[in-house]
């Protein structure tokens, strides 16, 4: 039976250090590694009084003044404190895109951003784009083209798509833009590259691409 003696603790210590506190409960630990992992900052943070901070920002045009645990992500501020649960938590690690919101006109992964970093910011979430009875053109196009299935990645896809079209208009290049001097066009390759941060495990990509293309081509 293999043993684990050949794994060097120093390597694991380094991994623990870089993975920071979020990953601690999940990392491949022996008891000793776990001990090593909870040294320092995590203990102090958890054992002490949570530090609260005031932050003010607007969400979908409404001003909010919050007094939050400084560890609260923008995503959890929206979902748990403002009850705007349209923005989804798919991974809490910045890997899936379900939490995408638009901050000051730019799309960001709200799970990777602390709420207190957004003092004075204007934030738009899926709820701010449209409502069931008054949908944003992108929302309506997703319905028309069946650009979703389970719906869990959908708010992130839509927020991402709306901001992505603005990025093209603003002339921002992407990884697949051949000519950095030219104005980027919404080609198939550009659209797919720019949307690749938003995972849809149901696999609605082909339909999402059609929905976005339709919105981009419409005079609106």
């Amino acid at each position, binding site marked *: *039976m293999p043993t684990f003696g050949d794994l060097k603790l120093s390597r694991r210590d380094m991994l623990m250090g870089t993975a920071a506190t979020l990953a601690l409960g*999940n990392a491949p630990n022996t*008891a000793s590694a776990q001990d090593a992992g909870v040294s320092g900052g995590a203990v102090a943070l958890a*054992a002490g009084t949570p530090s609260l901070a005031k932050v003010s920002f607007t969400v979908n045009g409404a001003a909010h003044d919050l007094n939050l645990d400084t560890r*609260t992500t923008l995503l959890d501020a929206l979902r748990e404190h403002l009850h705007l649960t349209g923005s989804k938590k798919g991974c809490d690690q910045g890997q899936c895109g379900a939490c995408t919101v638009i901050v000051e006109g730019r799309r960001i992964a709200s799970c990777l951003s602390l709420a207190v970093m957004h003092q004075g910011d204007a934030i738009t979430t*899926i709820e701010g784009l449209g409502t069931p009875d008054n949908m944003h053109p992108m929302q309506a196009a997703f319905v028309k083209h069946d650009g979703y299935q389970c*719906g869990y990645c959908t708010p992130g896809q839509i927020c991402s798509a709306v901001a992505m079209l603005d990025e093209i208009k603003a002339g921002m290049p992407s990884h697949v833009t051949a000519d950095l001097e030219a104005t980027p066009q919404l080609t198939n390759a550009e659209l797919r590259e720019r949307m*690749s941060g938003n995972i849809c*495990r149901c696999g609605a990509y082909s339909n999402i691409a059609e929905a976005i293309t339709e919105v981009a081509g419409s005079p609106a």
Partner: protein
Amino acid sequence: MKFDTPATTNPIDQLKVIGKPLDRIDGRFKTTGTARYSYERHDVVPNPAYGHVLGAAIAKGRIKSFDLAAAKSAPGVLAIVTADNAGALDKGKNNTAKLLGGPEIEHYHQAIAVVVAESFEQARAAAQLIRVDYQDDGGSFDLRAGMADAKPAKVLGGPADSAVGDFATAFAAAPVQLEQMYSTPDESHAMMEPHATTAVWDGDRLTLWTSNQMIAWGVGEVAKTLKMPKENVRLVSEYIGGGFGSKLFVRTDAILAALGARAAGRPVKLTLQRALVFNNTTHRPATVQRIRIGADKDGKITAIGHESWSGDLPGGKPDGAVSQTRQLYAGANRMTATRLAVLDLPEGNAMRAPGEASGMMALEIAVDEIAEKLAMDPIEFRILNDTQVVPDNAKEASKESQTVGSASKSELPFSQRQLVQCFQTGRDRFGWAKRNPKPGEVRDGRWLVGLGVAAAFRNNQLTKSAARVRLEQDGRIVVETDMTDIGTGSYTIIAQTAAEMMGVPIDKVVVLLGDSAFPVSAGSGGQWGGNNSTAGVYAACIKLREMIAQKLGVNSAEAAFTDGEVRTGARGVALADAARDGALSAEDGIEYGDLDKKYQQSTFGAHFVEVGVDAATAEIRVRRMLAVCAAGRILNPKTARSQVIGAMTMGVGAALMEELVVDKRRGFFVNHDLAGYEVPVHGDIPHQEVVFLDETDPMSSPMKAKGIAELGICGVAAAVANAVYNATGVRVRDYPVTLDKLIDKLPAVG
């Protein structure tokens, strides 16, 4: 309603609403962020505490001791539940390992504690303060090493081994032979919403808002695990952020939320952390497969053998990778064998098309290979070896023998089988004639271009399903059933069914799903949800129609329900009139006779793929995809098409990137997050085309529909792999087909 004779003409055949590519009725909620998932029930649970799960850091062994002191005294902590203080727990019938481990640990990241605190941040921080002292017993983590000791294991719906004719003699005598080994890796469902539950106790009654595909199973499993009466458990699953089989069964989130809520005396909600999902929950198990095909010089199969090895925890189940080989191609002499090794990896279980998905990945490469040996077009080979009866009816044989099927010839016909037509339609549509049968010959700039094809096959399963349908005083129709919509479109096809049956526009139908307070449905799994759940609604609507006719004093047999009226001859009465004295409610369900024993009900398809492989780097890009499907009546072409393109996408993942990497020393899946476990993204998937052949299957149900959601994944990966071979001349038999397996064998860059 008993369905025991083939369906004749019925109100569904009007096709005024059924069969139309309608937008989803839940679409405006999903696209505006107003659909409520299980962790988001602020509307019904205003002040929940938060749970955070701690997973075991070893694969197998024992917890020697816990040090909970620091965690207990951390700010905001309300309770910590471990096996020491959880009280007596049972284990669900469908759980191989316990959902709360300790002191014994059965697999890596098995849950060992839940910390409940006032806030998410506090629960998470406190969980990190728990110290665990483990006794690590090591374990068996390597499937290939375990193959020698693997034992026969029954495949769902059949014996472990089956035999027809004399395979060994016929294979030895075959002038053209193929014998190859193939492998598929462990795969993860990786649905976008991690397992999540909000739990509320009211005395000894428990309500769980939980992300679960099978509500009635879930009620039973929660009750069994917590040792409480089923009557005291309510499950609600209004919206589900993907399942693919991962949420067929009750998992840690539901049980620990319930235990945490009981300990804290507060409602508790928790989401399984994404990094725990891969090792804590189930996965599609890896397989090693051996395929032998013997053919005569004309290309007719004379012998076909398929053996599969997979592994699971003690008491677990095998992957049914040989299943389709009993039914898909003709051949007088046949064998299948399924072996199960005991592994101490996390629990293997159902993932989209369990069995066929991994089996077709291997079989449909093998078919491509023997067709090439025969110098035959792979489509021609498949057409030549088509069969209209089940060649190895191992289900029947299993009555006579527990392990080896009898050698008697089966005469079980398929209810419908348009496999040949799928290939013929796709061949023309995809431009198959342009394929150069000699691999590695077609260039498009820097790309080596290849075309690949594979069959799609998945059985249709019948299971009873009930619903309650109510005519409201305002003329609306309300449907209640515990059916779930995991992205499949259940809300919409159920509304279409009720609208068709009651003769009202779809916007007059309200569909309420996913609540155990509603009649028990088929649930979502095994591509059985669409046909069975709508058939259950059909049955309830028939009953409601009779009640309405009686109320209005007309003969129900002569009454036509159309345009919001009940018409007999020239006389029409508004439907709502029947409810003028109060709503009318009918409850019924569909139950099945033995039509699925007299006819094999299966779904068929053909997948076509074009890939480009970078001549220098071996980077693989999927350029075109087409699926042609024959799967009974298509209830809604828009949502059915989405099921197929989604399955095609998951098939591309299986072909090119998905692999849970096993740490064979420590016994866990290393790449346990969405960055390490790669799934297809926008950039990986081209425009996808789907064609549905015209088909109704009167043997399946009054809906004449069959499953579609799993058919779509079966064969896709092999079509991709075959296309890569056609592009490069490099045959990869160990999935995923990654560039490192190609690059040193590619032709010299010219």
